[in-house]
């Protein structure tokens, strides 16, 4: 198998508010790969994404996760981000009073500093960010607005991908990067993600819809249900899910478990 191991998840279980949501997840992601995680609402997809990023509301109760061979869970969310893990939020958070440009520069310089690279001053950063804006067909006026405040759903999602483009993580977990987007916005977001792919990084697309996968071809498609990955296939599986729904996968899983 080519590429190096980026993420290894073994028997991961997690709770939120005392309720077990993840019931034993196994997943292995190598550099250069695109994984799609699909599944019905409430199957635990978003929880999995948030647990990886270190959201404080989620409690890891078992299993282990290695990121580039090192335990992920002994690191704070900010340490994970600096190590090259990125979560694209399903619902990006609005931060009134903080301009997008200062937020992006602060994040960029923090992550760069952790990588032992030079920080950029506001002017240098402006040059750097202009190229990234073009990639996502974003108006530079975005930079002067407060982070996500008053952004449309599509603008928020593009702002997430802009952060992805700026921070250049090793592993990007994009939680429903496609929901709420019209076809044009979807194409822009998907093209942005595709152009950021390299043999050294990997992407996990958490999605509800097959549509996104027309633009970003996954190497693996995983179906998640009731806190577990119950089936893994290739991009054909996504098409099959689109036409047949999820029930048959769950039925198949149950009969397999019974046998």
């Amino acid at each position, binding site marked *: 198998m080519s590429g190096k191991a980026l993420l290894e998840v073994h028997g991961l279980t997690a709770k939120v508010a005392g309720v077990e949501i993840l019931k034993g997840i196994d997943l292995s992601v190598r550099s250069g790969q695109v994984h799609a995680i699909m599944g019905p609402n409430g199957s635990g997809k978003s929880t999995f994404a948030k647990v990886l990023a270190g959201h404080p509301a989620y409690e890891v109760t078992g299993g282990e996760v290695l990121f580039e061979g090192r335990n992920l869970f002994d690191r704070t969310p900010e340490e994970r981000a600096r190590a090259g893990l990125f979560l694209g939020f399903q619902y990006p958070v609005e*931060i009134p009073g903080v301009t997008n440009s200062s937020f992006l520069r602060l994040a960029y310089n923090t992550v760069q500093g952790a990588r032992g690279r030079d920080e950029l001053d506001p002017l240098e950063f402006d040059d750097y960010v202009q190229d990234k804006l073009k990639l996502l067909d974003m108006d530079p006026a975005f930079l002067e607005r407060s982070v996500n405040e008053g952004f449309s759903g599509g603008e928020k999602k593009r702002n997430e991908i802009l952060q992805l483009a700026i921070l250049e993580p090793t592993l990007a977990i994009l939680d429903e990067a496609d929901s709420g987007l019209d076809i044009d916005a979807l194409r822009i977001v998907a093209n942005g993600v595709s152009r950021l792919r390299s043999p050294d990084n990997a992407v996990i697309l958490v999605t509800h819809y097959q549509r996104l996968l027309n633009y970003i071809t996954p190497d693996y498609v995983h179906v998640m249900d009731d806190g577990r990955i119950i089936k893994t296939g290739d991009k054909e599986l996504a098409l099959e899910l689109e036409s047949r729904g999820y029930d048959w996968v769950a039925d198949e899983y149950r009969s397999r478990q019974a046998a």
Partner: protein
Amino acid sequence: MISMDALKSTYLDGLLHGQREVSAASVSWLNALRAEALERANALTAPTTRDEDWRFTDLSPLYKTVLRPSSQPAEAAASMIEPWLIPEAGSRLVFVDGVFASNLSVLRPEDGVVVSPLAVALARHGEYLQGQLGRVVASSDDPFSAVNTAWLRDGAVVLVDANRDVTHPIHLLFVSASPGVAVYPRTLVVTGCGSRCTVIEDFRSPHQDVSLTNAVTEIAVGENASVRHLRLQSESASAFHIATCGVRAARDGCYSNVSVSLGARISRYNLNVTQSGEGTSFEIDGLALISGRQLADTHSFLDHAQPHGRSRQLHKCIAGGAAHAVFNGKILVRPGAQRTNSAQESRNLLLSDRAHVDTKPQLEIFADDVKCAHGATVGQLDAEQLFYLKSRGLSEPTARDLLTFAFSAEIVERIGLPSVVKSLEDTVIHRTQS
């Protein structure tokens, strides 16, 4: 052991001690005004937490502090006020321990505009001032205003003729320079019909010792005139600061106020704004950023006494350490003040478990065709916002600072003067990081 009651009953006397030695004013009506205020002050007692208006603000630390009147203003060098200069400002009046410092002041003559210390204004506009001074803020029921007026000997006077547009903000800098003194700043602003001006009141001290500032500001906004009023209070962390600002707006007048309280051990700001004509507009913004054992109390009273008044108020408090923020925002809509449109919001951020805030919006509506809204929130930093920032690599302290800064930014940006905004932003960042 002297009881608190005994202390407070003699406290005003103590503040008034030496008042009789203040030289008589050049005009008899001012002497009469002072005498009347002295009489009122003698009749009133200093407030305690048993008074509804002072429930949350305990002045006993002040009552235990002996302060002397500033007989001789401190020598003030230009270097002292250097950090407080506002490049965007035009005229600047500087008062050191309550006394006009001509060497530090800059007077830019402008047609139809008077910006001058009281003594000079009295000589040229005495008769006019008689009808204005002590009119918007009466000595009648507030002991501190009465004490201020009893001591009234100097102050800042801003008079703007009809239809004048005063391009540069007027900077009134009140420096409490000597430790242990009580000073009584006074400001009078009267603007003519259709005029526009910006006045900055700026209270500073170069030391970290105890002192008392007891200030009174009177603002009469002319018909269809606009007054922007910025108020910065950044006195010593051991200081006491008690101030009353009264505003009266004539028909279609606009008054906007941005007040920022950073300093003083105990500060109290009374802002009383009333309509003398219909169709006025009030924009009131406040920010208190306090820590340690500071207490910052803002009492505002917006009096919709006439129809078609609009008011919008946003007051924010950020309290860290064991600090205590108080906001009491009363809005009165009197009978007949129809079509009043008023919105008030009090938002409070607590940065530590020991900090606390008392916020009390008070709406009293006696007219039936009005639109009034108010709300109050008290919270800590938002956990989702913190996580979002940390998920982008920002450390916990950096994320907290950024969110605290953002909370204050909404008010700070409304100041609109780049140098003041910048310096306040730096202060906020410095404060949150310490």
